[in-house]
């Protein structure tokens, strides 16, 4: 838990840095970098979801994990189809790298946990993760996306992150009881 909170704190600092840089027009991510952030953000949650589907100790946690795999896979299929059509090659960047590292850390932490401890750590991370991605969508991705179709895709999938965040919070509340 400590490590996941810590990695989340680091991500917040990085995200904050990206926003601060956003004040200077040229400093925000370009479309190729945004594409990479979108695909990575989805992939990270697919990986954690697969683990929860297998290791979750309650039906709610297992179902939520399965749904994360389904929903984020669907979003990624659409994202990959669009970047292929636009002939944009996703470009690694500090935000996508930190997402990837945070995701790997989370999976590592979760692999060492069982039962209720696993459920709690997974769901807590899902709440933090979806909030973090929403912040990135609003403060970095949408304001910086140049291509209208790429921007439209991000706008279109944003409600899914909101719904997942709310759903994760609902499960988080039941786990506390």
């Amino acid at each position, binding site marked *: 838990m400590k490590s996941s909170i810590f990695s989340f704190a680091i991500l917040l600092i990085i995200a904050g840095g990206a926003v601060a840089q956003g004040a200077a027009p040229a400093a925000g991510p370009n479309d190729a970098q945004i594409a990479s952030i979108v695909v990575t953000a989805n992939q990270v949650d697919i990986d954690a979801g697969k683990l929860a589907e297998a290791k979750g100790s309650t039906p709610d946690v297992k179902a939520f994990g399965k749904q994360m795999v*389904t929903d984020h896979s*669907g979003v990624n299929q659409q994202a990959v189809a669009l970047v292929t059509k636009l002939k944009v090659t996703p470009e690694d960047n500090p935000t996508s790298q930190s997402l990837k590292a945070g995701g790997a850390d989370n999976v590592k932490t979760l692999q060492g946990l069982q039962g209720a401890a696993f459920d709690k750590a997974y769901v807590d991370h899902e709440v933090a993760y979806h909030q973090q991605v929403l912040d990135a969508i609003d403060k970095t991705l949408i304001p910086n996306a140049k291509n209208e179709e790429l921007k439209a895709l991000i706008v279109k999938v944003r409600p899914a992150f*909101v*719904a997942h965040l709310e759903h994760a919070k609902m499960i988080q509340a039941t786990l506390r009881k």
Partner: protein
Amino acid sequence: MIAVAGEVNRHDRTAPRALLVVLACALGATCSAAGAADKPRSYTVVIEGVAYQPAELAVKRGDTVAWVNKDPFPHTVTVPGTFDSHEIAAGSTWKYVARNAGTYAYICTLHPNMKGTLAVQ
């Protein structure tokens, strides 16, 4: 035949009015008053951005409602214990004929914050 037509004209004063309605319809006027309202209608609810659009819909018994999923992942239209679309895949449509009157609050079992209402009169 002519005699029969004469009978109708003499005893049914609505006939000329019916003729007018038919003419009006032929000219492209709104025909809903001419009995078309009794025919079952079809409605569409679009599922997009993890929401039902429109979220509230009123129909008459016998009408058909089609839920079209435009999100890249599945959704459901579920009234627990009453009707259930089960998973509507991305890009798919689920149709439901509203047979029983009542107000039905439905949800997506996959995204519990998605809510809609179908009122059947």
